[in-house]
């Protein structure tokens, strides 16, 4: 029974993989079928996931099991979640802006401190790189310092990019493009490995052409 189920599963996976690959030729009914199955199944999956791994354990079970303030504070997210349903009724639809505002505010507020502590200050510290002599490390430090400063200046919006600022911003965009090139190649390698994995599945698990 188990092996039969696995066999059927492998064939379905193989068919869906080829159906998705068929998009490389052009849009066609087989791709449409695979696409709709994928979108529908994934939407259903996330609905169940949120219900059983977020709402039930964190809200309902949490309310049943917690005591004191930890219990009653759960009424706040519960109420905000229910208010979102007010969109069903046109007269009360405006209420749904409250939980949205709450979510946005919390996200922005937490993000400021987290980014300053996690990104800005460590990166600023790592860019304090002096020249210590005629050596390769010092050359590297100069390149890094110039790269960081000119890149920051590229993202300076309060003045037009003219004169010295324009010149430095142009140097900055060169640094940005060099980093994009490196990132492109690096990510492409990762994508190729994903393709190899999928082809390996087709040739090995499905067709048994290779061992």
């Amino acid at each position, binding site marked *: 029974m188990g092996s039969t189920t696995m066999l059927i599963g492998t064939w379905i996976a193989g068919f869906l993989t080829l159906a998705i690959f068929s998009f490389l030729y052009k849009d066609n009914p087989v791709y449409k079928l695979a696409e709709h199955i994928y979108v529908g199944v994934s939407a259903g999956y996330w609905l169940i996931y949120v219900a059983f791994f977020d709402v039930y354990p964190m809200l309902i079970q949490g309310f049943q099991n917690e005591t004191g303030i930890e219990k009653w504070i759960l009424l706040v997210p519960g109420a905000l979640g229910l208010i979102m349903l007010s969109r069903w009724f046109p007269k009360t639809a405006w209420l749904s802006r409250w939980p949205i505002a709450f979510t946005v505010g919390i996200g922005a507020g937490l993000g400021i401190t987290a980014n300053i502590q996690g990104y800005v200050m460590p990166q600023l510290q790592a860019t304090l790189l002096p020249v210590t002599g005629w050596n390769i490390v010092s050359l590297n430090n100069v390149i890094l310092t110039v790269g960081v400063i000119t890149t920051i200046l590229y993202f300076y919006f*309060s003045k037009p990019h003219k004169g010295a600022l324009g010149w430095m911003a142009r140097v900055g965009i060169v640094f940005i493009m060099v980093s994009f090139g490196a990132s492109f190649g690096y990510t492409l390698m990762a994508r190729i490995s994903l393709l190899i994995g999928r082809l390996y599945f087709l040739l090995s698990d499905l067709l048994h052409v290779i061992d």
Partner: protein
Amino acid sequence: MTRPETPDRTRFGLLMVFVMLLTIPALTGGDSFARPRSLATSEILSSPTDLAMVPVLPPAVCTVQAADVPEDGGGLISVTWEVPEDTPGTEFITAFEILRYAPGETPAPVGDVPPTDRAFEDGSAEDGTTYQYIVRSVSPSGFTDSEPSGPAVASAQWFARGRFPVLLVTLFFCTAVLFFVQRAKGGAELFIRKIPGLEAVDDAVGRATEMGRPVLFVPGIETVSEVGTLAALTILGHVARRVATHGTRLLVPVADPIVMTTAQEIVRAAYAEAGQLDAYDPGSVAYLTYDQFGYTAGVDGIMVRERPEAVFLLGTFYAESLILAETGHAIGAIQIAGTKETSQLPFFVAACDYTLIGEELFAASSYLSREPVMLGSLKGQDLTKMTIVYVIVLGFVVGTVGALFFPGGNSFFSRAFDALYSWFG
């Protein structure tokens, strides 16, 4: 997306592990694969080690100190100790076991550490309870307890003084933003330079109108609490106003329910502002799925079937960026993309007509909306950026002068550089 595990690879991997298990212990002359772990006292005492090999009991550790971990959220007590040097039996210590007791209680183990460690953090302490600790030296021949530490009480602190620089920088940033927001609200003209790509927005909508084809706006795959999504939704408002004015069809597939709600509000408001509320179609903002690649497949399908003339890929994108941008390129649409995800920007640069790089996305939303809060925020960020540039230049000059002209590390410049460097740590 994980690579599927295959039986052959598993078999090969198991074979390799088996060979390694066979060979490496033989080469190293012992059970080198045994993960060093501290043993419970009962395990030590019942181990089959030849006790004749270990003639003496391990020495007791000294100077056992326990103290509340400073500037934390409570519930933590730090225990430290020293091992007397050149004392017989030290080399046979296999672990240190830490025992804790409150007044009136019997000492009970709360953890153990390898013999190389000289500190332990007790994370099971209750705030407000006085504890004392005993460190037990364990060897195959037995154990020896230390003198108890002094009393220690765990407590939470309101402020982590080590993060004072973070507070200062945050205050500086927030003050700068609030200052410029107030100026903008007061009617001051705050200049923002033109951003390449923004001018193309109106052209793209106009071209779609001429061709009689829809405009597709993809606001990324993240939730509404992501700043990238927020910036994208602000630009969506501008695009929707243009679309409403021109009478073009707008398609906004979304991956998050709250983004859908927000996008519907924004598009509806834009149609109302343009005096075209009757033309607003609530179905133009449609939820697909939260699944990353399910959403991608759905958007790709919309692209090839609806054939939009203008495609906006603005917001937070991850691995789906190139798939979307390539499909948009394949259908011949004019594409304007933007994201703060640096790893995805190269794909947008390669496959799209215009790309808003990183913060340009946020600047674009401020530029288009002309909202005082957004303009002030952008100006505040600019001030912070210039301050950062000045700090980097200052650090570079001071550090370089100290290193080149006053070698030795004791000059004013070297000390100033070190102070600046550690302040940001």
